[in-house]
């Protein structure tokens, strides 16, 4: 820790010597303390070390700078990416500093969503580290004139044991610079038992900055001469300004300009929403002056969106046959011949991301260049979106990635970055665009609204012999293709098509639904609604069969096997991974359920008012089972005394951060169960945390027990899979405690 702070100070002292081209980067936070990352950047600019590849810079003083090309939003990717490199490099962790990469295709995929940072980089980054280690061995062998095979290394030092000689990595920089980097793909990687950092609970590299308030988020960017913009956006998507009176706003001391932005043309994609921007010399003035704008809006085609009515139209749609996306056996015959049938409609509302840090971006634009600082999950998309909006080439745009105060998919969308670029061009000054919480809640790329119809048939023994599911929701595709009214393949593969149940007669259908607002992806995406319906319904079937919900869930899943999904009418996406490498393995799904039942002491009778609910789901190639304990009080209020959750994510890089993601993903799941965004006259009806509910400490589980299944399977997703089982497990628990089955979200805080 103290090393990081020391580096901050060193960096601070060296600021003055910074090279001209980096002037903006280095003058960030002109008043406050520098973050460790900014300090590393500064130190490197003064005394460049050796960068044998994109990810490693060896400093002459023995320090190692590791570049993280994925965005940090709390999942500790900066730490885990560095662990992968540092382990194979045999770097001394105390001498490692992480630098954040700008958006550039040379780094490969930087789109930080889909829970895939580790999966995509697990081998690649280890090879990057291992090949540099190999290079250092070659440099040492060259220095000592010994065979390279006699060189070994440990914690930043290369040894020649036979002669007792040693050289630190920093001392080998010049010699290494003269040698070619060995081919990364042929570098020898460590065996698992040799891992020093991978699989360990290494603390976050940003912890110290966070605790001191010096961590730099998108909101915290400050440039010399910078102006702050807040924007009054059309309350309805594709709305526009009809008339504007900005006299009072302009008359406010500190206001520099009022600028109208053009509304986007469909599809909305990552374009700026348009509206009226107030530019001032500080945030408070900009916010105040925006309140003085008098604007009449033209709402356009989305102006009559009413989410309550829309829900009923979707319920009507799921009542009718849809388009088949998976079918096996003869469902109609099975249902007709069943001893008992059960059917249910589940409704789930729009949700907002409500990242703790609202979107914010800062830009400087000249005729032939743009430089941007943003809390973006996808810096390459930010780069191309800014380039497109400004008529520049992507190579003319530099996108620096700050820390993200939460992402959850919101900051994958680049509208706020484009706004900053447009306003920086219009003013000719550095401009930071600040979103207020109201802006965030009312202009989100919302999690979709949905209706699901499920029907099942049970035989005389209570076994489910037929399963019909119809799913209807406006697709994320509508954001990028205005005419899209049907789910995309990947959406159907999130908990519908990939149903793991061993039911002979099974049919999944989709229906159509048009989008009237911006639809986006929110942590775990369509799994949220599909898991809510399917895992609630599984519990309803257990009750219809008079069986224990956990036992019945295992019975539905059936024996350990690989679920093959050949020849589907719509291809199964499997999160972009090959099914050969990442099959749907019901053995692993069964195992997390059995383990969570054991850890939660599932069969123990709970005291009056308390009950357990269970749900399990495979998403992002990981398996999670969750037991929620609910306590319902006499007045109908409820709390969650405990949650037990078990994850099998294959190989994990950082056990503590996986645990933290399971805890956080669980709380996020509670928020998904109790939150709702509704629309009337095309306008989001909620605006801030008083009416858009997210879990506070009082609603969050008092205790969360996380178990990570030890595994050497290929690494799978972690950030999202803990979320989907929570809402159904909670509703299943509430049903047991109260007899009340909740099929319409949100769950009221008083039952």
């Amino acid at each position, binding site marked *: 820790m103290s090393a990081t702070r020391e580096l901050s100070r060193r960096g601070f002292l060296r600021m003055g010597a910074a090279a001209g081209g980096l002037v903006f980067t280095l003058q960030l936070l002109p008043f406050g303390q520098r973050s460790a990352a900014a300090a590393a950047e500064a130190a490197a600019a003064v005394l460049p070390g050796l960068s044998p590849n994109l990810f490693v810079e060896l400093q002459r003083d023995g320090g190692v700078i590791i570049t993280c090309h994925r965005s940090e939003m709390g999942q500790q990717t900066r730490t885990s990416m560095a662990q992968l490199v540092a382990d194979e490099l045999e770097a001394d962790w105390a001498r490692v500093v992480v630098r954040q990469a700008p958006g550039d295709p040379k780094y490969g995929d930087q789109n930080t969503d889909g829970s895939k940072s580790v999966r995509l980089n697990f081998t690649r980054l280890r090879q990057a580290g291992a090949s540099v280690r190999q290079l250092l061995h070659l440099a040492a062998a060259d220095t000592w004139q010994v065979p390279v095979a006699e060189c070994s290394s440990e914690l930043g030092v290369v040894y020649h044991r036979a002669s007792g000689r040693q050289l630190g990595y920093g001392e080998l920089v010049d010699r290494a610079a003269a040698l070619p980097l060995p081919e990364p793909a042929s570098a020898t990687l460590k065996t698992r038992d040799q891992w020093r950092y991978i699989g360990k609970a290494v603390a976050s590299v940003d912890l110290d900055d966070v605790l001191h308030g010096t961590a730099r988020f998108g909101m915290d960017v400050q440039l010399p001469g910078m102006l702050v913009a807040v924007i009054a956006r059309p309350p309805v998507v594709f709305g526009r300004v009809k008339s504007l009176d900005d006299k009072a706003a302009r008359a406010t001391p500190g206001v520099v300009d009022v600028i109208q932005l053009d509304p986007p043309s469909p599809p909305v994609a990552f374009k700026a929403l348009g509206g009226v921007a107030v530019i001032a010399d500080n945030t408070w003035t900009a916010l105040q002056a925006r309140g003085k704008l008098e604007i009449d809006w033209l709402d356009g085609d989305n102006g009559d969106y009413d989410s309550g009515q829309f829900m009923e139209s979707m319920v009507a749609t799921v009542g009718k046959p849809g388009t088949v996306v998976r079918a096996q056996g003869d469902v109609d015959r099975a249902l007709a011949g069943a001893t008992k049938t059960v059917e249910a409609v589940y409704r789930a509302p729009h949700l907002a991301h409500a990242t703790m840090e609202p979107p914010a971006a800062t830009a400087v634009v000249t005729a032939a260049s743009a430089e941007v600082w943003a809390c973006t999950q996808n810096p390459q998309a930010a780069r191309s979106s800014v380039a497109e909006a400004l008529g520049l080439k992507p190579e003319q745009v530099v996108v620096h990635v700050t820390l993200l*105060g939460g992402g959850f998919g919101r900051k994958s969308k680049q509208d706020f970055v484009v706004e900053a670029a447009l306003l920086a061009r219009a003013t000719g000054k550095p401009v930071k665009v600040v979103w207020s919480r109201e802006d965030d809640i009312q202009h989100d790329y919302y999690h979709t609204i949905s209706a699901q119809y499920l029907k099942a048939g049970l035989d005389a023994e209570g076994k489910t012999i037929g399963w019909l599911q119809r799913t209807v929701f406006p697709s994320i595709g509508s954001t990028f293709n205005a005419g899209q009214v049907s789910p995309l393949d990947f959406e159907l593969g999130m908990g519908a098509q990939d149903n793991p149940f061993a039911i002979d007669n099974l049919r999944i259908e989709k229906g159509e639904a048009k989008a009237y607002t911006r639809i986006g992806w929110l942590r775990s995406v369509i799994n949220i609604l599909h898991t809510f319906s399917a895992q609630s319904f599984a519990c309803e079937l257990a009750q219809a069969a008079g069986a224990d919900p956990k036992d019945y869930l295992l019975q539905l899943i059936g024996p350990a096997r690989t679920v093959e999904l050949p020849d589907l009418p719509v291809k199964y996406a499997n999160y972009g991974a090959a099914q050969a490498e990442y099959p749907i393995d019901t053995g692993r799904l069964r195992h997390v359920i059995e383990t969570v039942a054991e850890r939660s002491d599932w069969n123990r009778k709970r005291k009056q008012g308390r009950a357990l609910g269970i749900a399990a789901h495979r998403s992002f190639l990981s398996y999670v089972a969750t037991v929620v304990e609910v306590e319902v009080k006499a007045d109908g209020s409820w709390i969650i005394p405990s949650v037990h959750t078990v994850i099998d994510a294959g190989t994990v890089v950082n056990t503590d951060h996986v645990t933290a993601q399971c805890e956080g993903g669980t709380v996020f799941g509670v928020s998904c169960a109790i939150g709702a965004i509704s629309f009337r006259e095309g306008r989001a009806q909620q605006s801030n*945390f008083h009416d858009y509910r997210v879990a506070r400490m009082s609603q969050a589980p008092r205790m969360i027990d996380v178990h990570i299944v030890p595994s050497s399977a290929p690494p799978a997703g972690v950030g999202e899979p803990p979320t989907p089982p929570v809402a159904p497990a909670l509703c299943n628990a509430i049903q047991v405690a109260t007899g009340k089955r909740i099929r319409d979200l949100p769950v009221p805080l008083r039952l």
Partner: protein
Amino acid sequence: MKLNVNGESHQFDGDPAMPILWFVRDMLGFTGTKFGCGMALCGACTVHVDGAAVRACTTPVSFAENKRITTIEGLAKGDELHPLQKAWQQHNVPQCGYCQSGQIMQAAALLAKNASPADDEIVSAMSGNICRCGTYTRIHAAIKTAAEELS
């Protein structure tokens, strides 16, 4: 007016209605204090005024005239971390970190008043502070650890 922030005195001649949040962030560069809601609903902006936790987003600078404002940057005594900062380290509390300054400042004010809070007292004192990353169980545990350390 004169405003004392983290032990240093600053002259401010702007709008006395400006919330402390924007004064410390925009004027002084103490960006550790965060903007989360602007309506005293989330606690991200929590600072101390004469040792008591206030929501800086809705508290005007005029309120702090002749009082001491402490932000997260001023919580540690030099290199000596506040016991809560140490406990936060020990429990690896932060995820994205954005809410954490406010959480720590809120918890510090709680412990200053109540050195060994009961579980429910922690929940009620901290329920005004949202953590969208869901670090609540660790926040709770870290406050317990710091309380033990202090007593």
